[in-house]
């Protein structure tokens, strides 16, 4: 079994190095094929490991070697495959295999084809390190690793120039990449602090040691550790106020958006909360804050998705919103439901993104849904996939999204936080509305793309077949809910609804369903026929506010980036040059000037020298006398 762990972990690394060795050569089809095959190997290994864990209920724990050993600190490269990590491994390797296959078609015409596979596989490796590590430092390796891969992949088309924010809200791929990296770094600091707190209070970073030591720790330490770790999670999972990078990250190639910014990396924050559940379990205040923030983000992101015109950004906002759901569940203590939603979301959101990728490919890179319409004739398969995924997202039974999302909303009700419940229900309606607004605008109604001289075409067959596993899973994943519950509660706390909630479950479900269906119906009425734009609505304050993301990116620019740049300039030009350096030069100047002034003494006239000598003699005599007297 140990071998399988290493195969699952290192196959993507091998793939990355293999593809990387061709990175500077022209496109080679076999690079994509071999990479995909290696990823598939990793997936198979993960699946076997999953079966093993399911069958034996035993975690596999391996230690590769020591990493950092200094003082009392001892961090190994240790990997653990238990119920939680194997679930993540399964999801990650599955989605990434599909995305790899998809990319062979999608990146077909890109000259940096080989490089792309190298980055993509490197990302999968980092993600696996993140989920498989048996200690917080190992998690941090993966944590930063996925950050860098995300940076590389967002900025994949680095050659694009910067443009004004009005034209492209993300300015340029490289700008978006840097934004993502730096925002993540801010959160990573929190994560590091959390690690420090744990180390100095426990003396180890191994999960098992730390969790066993929890009863010995004071509440204040636990709370600060939980806060610090959650700050880390906020960055990676793009929670408010560190959320702006996620939509900008859509500058990356679409497979990247599907894999990293929907299915896997952004869920790392949720994973962290689930992984460290013993800590969050004993810090109810922090947990409740997580739930509240999650709910807020779910609503907040959905509201921005309502008016957006960019196909990928809409999906990105919905990702943000769904992450909010996951945090709400995790914060309320329903860790396994959060994990379940994480998995289900990975499948249908990846599917949705890949579908969007097909559309983008067909539309020559155009993403504005106002310029699309009526695509269902040309792209039947894509239409089906996206429609299915949107239905799942909207939470229509019996698709996967219904089971997971409904469970979260029910949890909120069960916990008695009716405000959270109400907001989550409303958000469910908004979700349904915006996903179908997008579907209808893209695939139904008049064919607006003709004006722009675009000739859409369906994606390659093998790509469409490659997407099918996701579609199947998006449909059937919900039926495994009870089985997954039995499987996962071996390690996560079992969350069960109270008797009361149980009785009301049917009604609650119906309410959610009704809201969702009404969302879809609203979208149908408004957008099925085609695009009807109303100047009045688009100029209204609310519309503008939402379309500009509540002006938060502008605010950050005005309050943080610009002042930082100005301050830096000030520090350099004024403080460093005019104060610090000028002081040093001033001292030197004083010495120089005094030398220059006293140069007059050196008149060359012996008589003057003799006078000076006499004065010196007087001084010496005085000293002599004083010393004699003393």
């Amino acid at each position, binding site marked *: 079994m140990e071998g399988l762990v290493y195969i699952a972990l290192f196959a993507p690394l091998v793939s990355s190095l293999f593809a990387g060795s061709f*990175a*500077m050569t022209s496109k080679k089809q076999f690079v994509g094929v071999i990479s995909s095959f290696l990823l598939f190997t990793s997936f198979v290994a993960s699946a076997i490991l999953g079966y093993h864990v399911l069958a034996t209920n035993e975690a596999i724990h391996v230690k590769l*070697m*020591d*990493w*950092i*050993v*200094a*003082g*009392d*600190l001892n961090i190994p490269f240790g990997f653990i495959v238990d119920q939680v990590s194997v679930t993540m491994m399964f999801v990650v390797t599955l989605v990434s295999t599909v995305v790899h296959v998809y990319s062979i078609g999608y990146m077909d015409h890109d000259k940096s084809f080989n490089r792309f596979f190298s980055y993509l596989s490197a990302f999968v490796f980092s993600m696996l390190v993140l989920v498989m590590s048996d200690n917080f*430092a190992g998690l*941090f*390796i993966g944590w*930063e*690793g996925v950050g*860098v891969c995300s*940076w590389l992949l967002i*900025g994949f088309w*680095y*050659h*694009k*120039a*910067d443009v004004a924010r009005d034209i492209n809200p993300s300015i*340029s*791929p*490289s*700008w978006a990449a*840097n934004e993502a*990296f*730096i925002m993540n*770094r*801010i959160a990573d*600091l929190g994560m*590091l*602090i959390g*690690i*420090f*707190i744990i*180390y*100095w*209070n426990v*003396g180890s970073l191994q999960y098992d040691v730390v969790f066993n030591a929890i009863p*010995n*720790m004071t509440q204040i330490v636990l709370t600060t550790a939980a806060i610090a770790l959650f700050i880390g999670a906020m960055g990676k999972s793009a929670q408010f106020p560190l959320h702006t990078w996620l939509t900008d990250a859509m500058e990356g190639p679409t497979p990247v958006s599907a894999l990293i910014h929907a299915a896997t990396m952004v869920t790392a924050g949720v994973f962290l909360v689930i992984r460290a559940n013993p800590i969050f379990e004993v810090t109810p205040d922090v947990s409740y804050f997580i739930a509240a923030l999650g709910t807020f983000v779910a609503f907040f992101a959905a509201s921005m998705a309502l008016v957006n015109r960019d196909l990928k950004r809409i999906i990105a906002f919905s990702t943000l919103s769904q992450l909010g759901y996951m945090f709400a569940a995790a914060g309320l203590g329903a860790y396994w439901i959060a994990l379940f939603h994480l998995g289900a979301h990975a499948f249908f959101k990846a599917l949705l993104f890949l579908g969007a990728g097909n559309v983008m490919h067909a539309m020559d890179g155009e993403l504005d849904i106002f310029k699309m319409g009526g695509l269902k004739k040309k792209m039947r398969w894509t239409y089906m996939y996206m429609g299915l995924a949107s239905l799942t997202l909207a939470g229509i039974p019996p698709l996967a999204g219904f089971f997971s999302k409904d469970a979260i909303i029910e949890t909120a009700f069960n916990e008695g936080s009716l405000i959270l419940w109400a907001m989550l229900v409303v958000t469910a309606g908004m979700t349904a509305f915006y996903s179908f607004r997008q579907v209808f605008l893209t695939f139904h109604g008049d064919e607006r793309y003709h004006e722009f001289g675009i000739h859409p075409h369906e994606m390659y067959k093998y790509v469409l077949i490659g997407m099918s596993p996701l579609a199947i899973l998006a449909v059937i994943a919900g039926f495994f809910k009870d089985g997954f519950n039995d499987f996962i509660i071996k390690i996560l706390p079992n969350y069960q609804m109270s008797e009361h909630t149980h009785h009301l479950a049917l009604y609650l479900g119906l309410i959610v369903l009704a809201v969702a269906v009404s969302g879809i119906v609203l979208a149908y009425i408004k957008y099925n026929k085609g695009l009807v734009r109303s100047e009045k609505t688009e100029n209204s304050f609310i519309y503008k506010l939402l379309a500009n993301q509540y002006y938060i990116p502008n605010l950050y620019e005005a309050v943080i980036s610009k002042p*930082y*740049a100005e*301050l*830096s*300039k000030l*520090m*350099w*030009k004024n*403080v*460093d040059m005019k104060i*610090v*350096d000028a*002081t*040093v030069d001033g001292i*030197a100047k004083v010495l120089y000037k005094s030398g220059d002034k006293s140069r007059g003494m050196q008149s060359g006239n012996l008589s003057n020298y003799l006078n000076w000598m006499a004065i010196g003699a007087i001084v010496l005599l005085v000293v002599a006398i004083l010393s004699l007297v003393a």
Partner: protein
Amino acid sequence: MSNILTILVFFPALAGLLGFVIDKNSTRVYGVAIAAIEFILSLFLWMNFDSLNPTFQFIEHFPIVKDFGISYYLGVDGISLFLVVMTTFMTLIGMMSMTIKEDLKNMVITLLFLEMTMVGVFLALDAIMFYFFWELSLVPMLYIIGAWGGPLRVYASVKFFLYTFSGSLIMLVGMLFVAYSFYSAAGAWSFAITDWYALGFDIEYQFWLFLAFFVGFAIKVPMFPFHTWLPYAHGQAPTIGSVILAAVLLKMGTYGFVRFSLPMFPDASVMMITPIAILSIIMVIYTAMVAYAQEDMKQVIAYSSVSHMGIVMLGIFAMNSEGISGSVFQMLSHGIVSGALFMLVGVIYERTHTKYMSEFGGLASIMPKYALVFGVMLMASVGLPLTIGFVGEFLVLIGFYKVSPILTILAGTSIIVGAVYMLALFKRSFFGPVTNEANRKLKDLNANELVSFIPLVALVIWLGIYPKPVLSIIDNSVKTTLSIMEQKAITPEAKEIIISKNSKEAK
């Protein structure tokens, strides 16, 4: 074998003398060969180093001036071992990558002499010898900047020389006072550092002596606000000068703190933790901001050096073995990474004769290999895990967290601000469309340059993934230093701090 340290110190200088008679056209090969032999010698030293023995090894000790206790005293422990190896390594790489055409012979000879002084500083266990090599190292550097530098070279080199020199004179006074105290206490003169370790001082003396040494070391590090010589020196120095300056010369200062200040003045060091930590944090954040504002690629890296050295300083004053070991490791990592970054800037400067970022843009499409190497070094510089930069930074921060969580959070912003200026540099130079048409014709790294950079990249990744062989040796010696401090501390508060910082509060 028994006098390998003497060979290590003086072999380059002797070879340098011999260099005067070598034919002009073969000096380059000669220099590389000598540097390679020296590097192999240092590897040999590492092989034979007893990693379980934390004290000084390969000691060579005989008196020079008996009446004043000045002796020829060399020795190596875990702290200095890797600094020596890094010195020889970076000299070798620097020599290999050197592209200077004019007066190449003089440059090679100067570098070999410089190597002697640098190795000498790290190996000397006699304060007078230490001081001798310390000051002597200024001369070749002065020559390198002054003779091969940019337009402001005279100003820069004189500033560099006078600044560091005046600092070290104050340090010399401190050294003489310590020796005198030793004479008063023991009845005989001695400048041997190991003898000095046994000497205790009153808290007041410790404070003033600490300050005297501090001035000497802090200017070399360079700590805020003594750092302004560095941007000039880097800005004007030729590539090889910047590489050696950043990689090795700056480390002398921090090495001095570990070798002298901590074990000799434990109480004063404990007393000064907070002021120095605050200075270091200013150094980290302030210079990171200044680096962000720069327009010149090389200046960004010069200021980033200061910022990173702030982390090193912080680790030294964490007073626990995580922090100090991390600090020493960070010295190595900064040596390799910043050396490599300066070399990379040198590569582009040589091709375009400009270092201004505004002249570049889109270099990644033209020079992918160059961009790759730069990217790896950039990631190491911002402290990405599994690169060499992370290990030291992580250990330093984790060590200092024990001292002060608040200050650690402030210092931890280095991972943010560091990313800000490095990524901005990378974006401005490598990303975006090719803005300068002339740059389209630039050639990617050639074989010669690749040969220099591949070992660096390999090292960055190897030590990032498996730092243990280096770290465990460092850690052993650091623990010894700490136990010396613990025994020597006279005030109970200091003793308590040193002890408590090293044992976990396992509740």
